[in-house]
């Protein structure tokens, strides 16, 4: 790692494939920043909700901010400070957007279930919301694993696609649902292209009707018009994407682990983030056994160890060293800034988070 310290930013995003310890590292970062007197909010949108195992918070509290005491973590039992944590609940976020306690629409209710598929889009809005609240020095975001991280990166583009001209055409065609009497809609410009799209929409809805039934089409149109009437938060979230690219605003942590060395995926992620600022991009190598393996001496022949046993252990050691070397070699060739986190050999997650936060301190 380069000598210069990692600057603390307003938003810090952890990404990487699943199971590399992303949530644990994000939590250890939150703990470290908390110990420095920062007000921190940790948001996880990982659908598997592993955060709750580490932080001891429950599913029924999803969508609500919880205060987490530092005393849960090894080494922090006596410094009393709190960090805030939030499990993403798509339904709660949508309620906030619609400013309502209940969502009546069938389609929206189903899509905002925990596994309904709208997590990525809504999490971007949730982040924006907490940044604007001004309550936190730093927001740490634990993104969902794998390909879905790319979904997350692209979600603002998806938002703009969703509210693009063809949608507006739908509403012009449907007319009434979005036109409130107080706010008469402007006369649509009657261009030929616009006309073509709107006849297309008519056909599309007819086909939809044919296969899904009339009831669904009604629910669906209602869902879309509810979203459309409340599109401002979605459109505002587009602003966030611009900020993500600035050095002052954001740190990116791409996490991998020696154990899994998903290097191909790491390279793929990196290629998707190339348009971002290089100097706030860090590669984190988790679960390194390097220091431990160095101390491992296999007794020579003639000692208590049979030849066969010796070969077995040599091959075990070799396979462990090879994993470490491959990962470090990759890190050096691809990233200007990388940090190695040691494997914590302990069954207690509180010990993992506590010990890992020491590595942040040294960087």
């Amino acid at each position, binding site marked *: 790692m380069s000598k210069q310290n990692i600057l603390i930013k307003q938003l810090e995003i952890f990404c990487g494939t699943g199971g590399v310890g992303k949530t644990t590292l994000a939590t250890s970062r939150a703990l470290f920043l908390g110990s420095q007197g920062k007000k921190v909010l940790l948001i996880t949108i990982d*659908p598997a909700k592993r955060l709750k195992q*580490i932080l001891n918070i429950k599913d029924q509290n999803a969508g609500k901010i919880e205060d987490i005491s530092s005393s849960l973590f090894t080494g922090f039992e006596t410094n009393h400070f709190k960090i805030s944590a939030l499990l993403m609940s798509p339904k709660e976020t949508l309620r906030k957007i619609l400013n309502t306690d209940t969502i009546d629409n069938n389609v929206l209710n189903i*899509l905002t279930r925990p596994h309904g*598929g709208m997590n990525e889009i809504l999490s971007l809005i949730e982040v924006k919301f907490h940044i604007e609240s001004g309550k936190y020095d730093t927001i740490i975001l634990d993104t969902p694993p794998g390909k879905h991280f790319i979904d997350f990166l692209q979600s603002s583009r998806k938002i703009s*696609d*969703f509210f693009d001209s063809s949608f507006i055409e739908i509403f012009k065609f449907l007319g009434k649902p979005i036109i409130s009497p107080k706010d008469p809609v402007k006369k649509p410009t009657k261009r030929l292209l616009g006309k073509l799209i709107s006849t297309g929409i008519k056909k599309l809805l007819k086909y939809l009707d044919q296969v899904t039934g009339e009831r669904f089409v009604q629910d669906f149109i209602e869902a879309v018009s509810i979203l459309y009437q409340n599109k401002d938060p979605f459109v505002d979230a587009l602003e966030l994407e611009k900020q993500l690219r600035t050095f002052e605003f954001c740190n990116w942590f791409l996490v991998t682990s020696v154990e899994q060395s998903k290097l191909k995926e790491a390279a793929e992620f990196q290629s998707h983030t190339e348009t971002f600022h290089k100097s706030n991009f860090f590669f984190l190598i988790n679960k390194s056994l390097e220091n431990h393996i160095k101390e491992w001496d296999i007794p020579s022949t003639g000692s208590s160890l049979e030849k066969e046993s010796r070969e077995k252990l040599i091959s075990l050691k070799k396979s462990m060293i090879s994993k470490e070397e491959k990962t470090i070699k990759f890190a050096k060739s691809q990233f200007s800034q990388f940090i190695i986190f040691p494997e914590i050999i302990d069954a207690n997650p509180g010990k993992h988070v506590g010990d890992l936060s020491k590595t942040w301190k040294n960087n």
Partner: protein
Amino acid sequence: MFSKYKRLYFFTGKGGVGKTSFALALTKFLEKEGLNVAYFNFDQSQPKKIISLLQVPTIDQTIEESAQIYIENKLGSKTVASWILKTTFFKSLLNITPSIGYMISLGHIINRLEEDPSLTIVIDAPASGHTLSLFNSTHNFREMFKVGPLVEDIHKMHHFLKKNENLKVCILCLPNIMNVQEALELKSGLSNLNLFEGHLILNELLEGLTHNELETLPDFLREKIGIEQDLKKQYEQNFAEIVPFLSCTDYKDIVISLINLMRSIA
């Protein structure tokens, strides 16, 4: 003719637990058993290098292709189907709710199996949470549409998935507590859908060392083995299969070693 093998296999679990290695190894194993079998990666980024090294038979289908075929069959027109797919409206619908795409892909896979009774497909599935989304999607959309041709198709899919002789879903996990707990959570989440029961496989367990060998190990490794053994004891009744850590430095060798272990998993 009755086959001792299933028609459709799923490997799921967190990232890095061995889904791809197992799915590739099982495909090779079934091929050696004389089956007409293909590997399919649900997230569409196939590990090309290893596939060509081991010459694994694969299926390539994108969500767009599957959607095109499906809509074409429903509406009886190729032109209309490709027009619908090209509308920004449909594209953004697929983008904003990925679960529609999951369901379309799964439907296409099941169709292939029903059209060709000799075929077996091994699926390298998305990581835990997204596998739940995948199987939840059929329930969600059934509830959304309530009646009509789409709901009938979802019933057909469920009918296929519910048959024990058709399907085996394997949930892989590594020997650490969080990984095992998450796998159990996924198993119960899938079980709640009343379609099938997942099989838990514990992968990369460090064991098989003799007393003498253990004696020479450094502390960290003995501790690691100790933690893993405790975990194994605690959850033993949950694991359908336990697969040892393989000392290989090359990915290809890992997959080849796994092929020989697939008889009991298939």
